[in-house]
């Protein structure tokens, strides 16, 4: 990989220790992907925020970086953490102290404390969202896929350290053009696809490709909820960083019909019913909160229903009155965290969880060790709210 004089200096520690660490990551990543060089990024989005996932070793690493005076060079947002900072969940003190340490390390580095996995949604307006075609560095997989596929931005599917390095250096490596022969086409052959069908389509397609997957027949009926579900499903099963809708591709051709849908569903849905309901992975935006409130109407959930959303979306829903409607319907609204990898859902309390999210299903089953009842959102509301 070609480095400028200044980048060479940074790699050899002449711009300080933090910059040297960042460049070590950028150069290794760039060499591995066959990048020609580094390019400026106008936004970084970090993963590695939840104490549940990065643990004590990760928390200490970030505290060391912060103590060395490390500052991010570009606008930087971050993923959800383990819980809602403004609610008392009765979590163990050790977890809360670890989580607070991580948050304060990021804050002292100059990171925007957004705690959201839907940066594309809460920073949609022109003042903060970079113009189309700009390069960004997103570690959250659903956000990277969204940014590349529908957001008009360009990003690698960054690792947690890759995005942090990009934030500190203000640059990231640019992957060489993809071989069109390695881009598979997946044709949607499910009639009247639900939000869950899009998630399962993403899960199936993500395992079929390595970078881009071309989707045929999906463009027409897909709404925003379906699109988020697709991005999250795709990010869960493989290494893909974007999809194209009805594009050109010369790789393998696969159908996603009833049989493939049922196969994916069977591998993820392990329980007949849930002891509780968890919605929001990715977190729900303000529009989805309003949509959910309308869907429920005057009914209410008869079991615990936790709705995970972004802080900014919750504030918008409070102002619009949707938050009050959802609480009246028995929903518990939590910000800053999401249905994946939160200590708030534990096998000590529940055997199984009902959700509409493919991503949540994957992690609830593997990491939280609970059964999962996976259903489309409309079916959950119809079956559980009376």
């Amino acid at each position, binding site marked *: 990989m070609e480095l400028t004089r200044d980048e060479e200096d940074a790699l050899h520690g002449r711009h300080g220790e933090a910059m040297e660490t960042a460049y070590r*990551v950028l150069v290794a990543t760039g060499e591995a992907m066959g990048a020609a060089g580094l390019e400026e990024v106008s936004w970084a989005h970090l993963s590695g925020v939840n104490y549940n996932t*990065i643990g004590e070793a990760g928390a200490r690493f970030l505290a060391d970086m912060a103590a060395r005076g490390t500052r991010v060079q570009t606008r930087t947002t971050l993923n959800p953490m383990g819980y809602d900072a403004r609610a008392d969940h009765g979590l163990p003190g050790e977890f809360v102290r670890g989580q607070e340490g991580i948050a304060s390390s990021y804050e002292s580095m100059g990171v925007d404390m957004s705690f959201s996995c839907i940066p594309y949604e809460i920073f949609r307006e022109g003042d903060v969202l970079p113009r189309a075609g700009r390069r960004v560095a997103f570690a959250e997989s659903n956000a990277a896929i969204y940014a590349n596929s529908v957001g008009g931005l360009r990003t690698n*599917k960054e690792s*947690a350290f890759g995005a942090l390095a990009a934030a500190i250096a203000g640059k990231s490596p640019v992957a060489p053009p993809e071989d069109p022969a390695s881009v598979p086409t997946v044709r949607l052959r499910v009639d009247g696809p639900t939000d869950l069908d899009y998630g399962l389509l993403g899960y199936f397609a993500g395992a079929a490709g390595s970078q881009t997957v071309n989707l045929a027949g999906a463009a027409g009926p897909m709404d925003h909820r379906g699109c988020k579900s697709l991005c999250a499903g795709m990010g869960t099963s493989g290494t893909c960083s974007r999809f194209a809708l009805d594009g050109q591709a010369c790789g393998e051709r696969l159908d996603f019909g009833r049989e493939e849908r049922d196969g994916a569903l069977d591998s993820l849905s392990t329980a007949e019913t849930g002891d509780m309901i968890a919605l929001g992975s990715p977190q729900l935006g303000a529009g989805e909160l309003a949509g959910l409130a309308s869907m429920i109407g005057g009914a209410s959930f008869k079991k615990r229903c936790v709705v995970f959303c972004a802080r900014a979306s919750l504030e918008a829903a409070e102002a619009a009155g949707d938050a009050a409607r959802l609480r009246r319907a028995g929903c518990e609204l939590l910000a800053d965290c999401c249905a994946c990898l939160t200590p708030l859902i534990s096998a000590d309390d529940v055997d199984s969880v009902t959700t509409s999210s493919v991503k949540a299903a994957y992690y609830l089953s593997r990491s939280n060790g609970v059964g999962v009842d996976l259903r489309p959102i409309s079916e959950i509301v119809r079956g559980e709210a009376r």
Partner: protein
Amino acid sequence: MRRTIVAGRATGPVLRSAEPINFLGAVDAARGAISDPSHALHGRALRGTILAFPHGTGSSVGAYTVYALKANGVAPAAMVCARPDASVVSGCAIAGIPLMLDGGLCAGVRDGQECTVDTVALTAVPA
């Protein structure tokens, strides 16, 4: 083609996996072992090994797991992958775990064999 990603030299027994490894979901960073019961290497210890596997998969946060293995003193001595993925590459870069790409070696090396890997000289010599 053999390529250096993180420079270094290490000797140890080869731990070979035919399956990819999801570091966030399938590895216990405190004990330094594969913790996913559905993984072929379930229960096997990583410490001091030459870990040879096709590639990493899963969450971007897997990079922190690679780092945590090193911080906890239970990391592989070196890794050899068939194709690079961002989490393993960046995790090894931060942790200083030598990393080399070599698909042929990953497929051909015998599990348990003592091996010295030099990712700068690009050699892998059975002891």
